[in-house]
């Protein structure tokens, strides 16, 4: 918990504005988070003092930029407690990271008839790359189904994990429902059959402490922009043995060793997976964001957010005539709901005019919407800087919207 939550809120300049003449209540954090001033300062500082393309150059600016970039890698390593620095690959986001693993695994590990296991609660980024790879390789995509509470139905997991399963890819926290999935149990069951597991942590690293060695997952991926960092940067963690084993995905500068017109050999980890000029300033900004989280403490964040989440849920449940889809026992940060007779986009448009930013639609999780048989939902999602004022404004606005639309 925070003694002085306003201090945190004041770090985020964008929050202190009016939209449509009302104070902004930004509750679209699962889509992207705002950036603290220290991250913006760091980005500008590096552009202004030390911008230079990294690796391979002997001059001062490049040397400084390279060291800062590699320092950013170490910051991420420590943040998720990876064993080796070179197990941290910078990508441009979660989507690119999952595409990388899906492609590379597909090239060398997947035979026709093999199976890939995802779940019905995934973001499209953790469905479509597997679908396309499965199509290319004549493999099959299977999924752990949802229950009406918005939880994964693990009773069928044993049946779904077969000798042909070559990877399990699951998100830690659902962006649409906020459900915290039982990844420990899934990893354990998969490992009993020697199946590697990818954790999509795009919605969890900013809310829960993560320790990849303790989780023992083979891969873990997330996006910088959802964890208070810049756009265009993300992280792909992979166990050394797996990253060594997989072929590269994108190719170009920096990821090669010897290139002749006839044949190319590749660089060592992590560069093998970092083709071309990386978003090195983005990496520096992301590492500053992670340092900021470390400074305020992930435990503190967790307890603040958990209190706010409960507060929001309690207030929402008081509303008449609301349908809440986020009913999992373990959940955090994001809540999906509808007024049964109102289209979510109508609710979103009215909330917007009342200063409340929520997301409406399918949240890139159409299979979840199909499961609940709805065309979309309204989603409110919180971050460390939100407070009960935001929630009160949101609930007031919902009351008005509900009244107008009924």
């Amino acid at each position, binding site marked *: 918990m925070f003694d002085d939550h306003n201090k945190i809120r004041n770090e985020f300049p964008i929050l202190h504005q009016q939209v449509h003449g009302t104070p902004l209540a930004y509750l679209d954090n699962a889509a992207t988070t705002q950036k603290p001033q220290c991250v913006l300062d760091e980005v500008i500082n590096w552009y202004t003092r030390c911008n230079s393309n990294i690796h391979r150059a002997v001059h001062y600016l490049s040397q400084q930029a390279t060291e800062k970039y590699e320092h950013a890698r170490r910051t991420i390593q420590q943040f998720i407690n990876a064993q080796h620095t070179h197990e941290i690959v910078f990508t441009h986001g979660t989507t690119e990271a999952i595409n990388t693993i899906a492609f590379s695994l597909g090239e060398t590990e997947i035979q026709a008839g093999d199976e890939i296991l995802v779940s019905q609660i995934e973001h499209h980024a953790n469905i479509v790359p597997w679908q396309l790879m499965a199509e290319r390789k004549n493999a099959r995509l299977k999924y752990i189904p949802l229950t009406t509470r918005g939880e994964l139905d693990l009773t069928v997991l044993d049946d779904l994990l077969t000798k042909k399963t070559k990877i399990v890819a699951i998100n830690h926290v659902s962006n649409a429902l906020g459900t915290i999935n039982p990844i420990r149990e899934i990893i354990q069951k998969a490992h009993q059959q020697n199946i590697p597991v990818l954790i999509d942590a795009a919605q969890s690293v900013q809310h829960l402490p993560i320790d990849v060695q303790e989780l023992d997952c083979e891969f873990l991926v997330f996006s910088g922009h959802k964890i208070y960092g810049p756009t265009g940067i993300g992280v792909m963690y992979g166990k050394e043995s797996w990253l060594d084993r997989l072929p590269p995905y994108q190719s170009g500068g920096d990821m090669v060793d010897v290139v002749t017109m006839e044949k190319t050999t590749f660089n060592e980890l992590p560069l093998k997976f970092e083709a071309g000029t990386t978003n090195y300033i983005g990496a520096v900004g992301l590492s500053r964001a992670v340092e900021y989280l470390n400074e305020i403490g992930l435990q503190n964040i967790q307890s603040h957010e958990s209190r706010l989440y409960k507060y929001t849920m309690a207030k929402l449940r008081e509303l008449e005539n609301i349908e809440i889809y986020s009913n999992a026992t373990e959940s955090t940060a994001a809540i999906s709901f509808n007024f049964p007779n109102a*289209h979510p*986009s*109508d609710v979103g*448009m*009215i909330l917007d005019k009342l200063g409340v930013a929520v997301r*409406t639609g399918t949240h890139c999780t159409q299979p979840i919407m199909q499961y609940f048989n709805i*065309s*979309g939902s309204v989603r409110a999602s919180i971050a460390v800087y939100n407070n009960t004022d935001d929630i009160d404004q949101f609930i007031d606005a919902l009351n008005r919207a509900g009244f107008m639309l009924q």
Partner: protein
Amino acid sequence: MHQKLYIYQLQGKENNQVKTIEEVQQEIIEEFSIFDNWMDRYNYIIDISKDLPLIDDKYKTKENLINGCQSKVWLHAHYNNGKMQYEADSDAIITKGIISLLIRVLSNRKPDEIMNSDLYFIDQIGLKENLSPTRSNGLLAMVKQMKLYAIAYNAREKQASN
């Protein structure tokens, strides 16, 4: 207040045949100028959407569906006595209200009037973002489709008269 406006609006509709696109747009802008906040404006849009049956269910077919990302929009057009007639609907009520405004402006007019119309009233009454290419509610696609129908009938007419 709503009641009064509603009647005003229906009167407007009756006079539609003689009023130009320009005039109807001015009329709508005037109507909306009464509201000084968004909730009233939306309440009015919602009212409009509720009271006007916009499309016969039999026209809510897949062919007539304009797929927006979030809300569905159906558009049915036919040509009668040299004039375009439009019917439309949406599953989102604010979208539906805006549709009713668009139809009030464009329906029952000659194709060439529609083809060349500049729908500035949307901007002036503060609903511009609803017709932005980045807002995937199907409205922009609907307006495009309305104009395309007008172009098509216009061409057919010309051909027939040649």
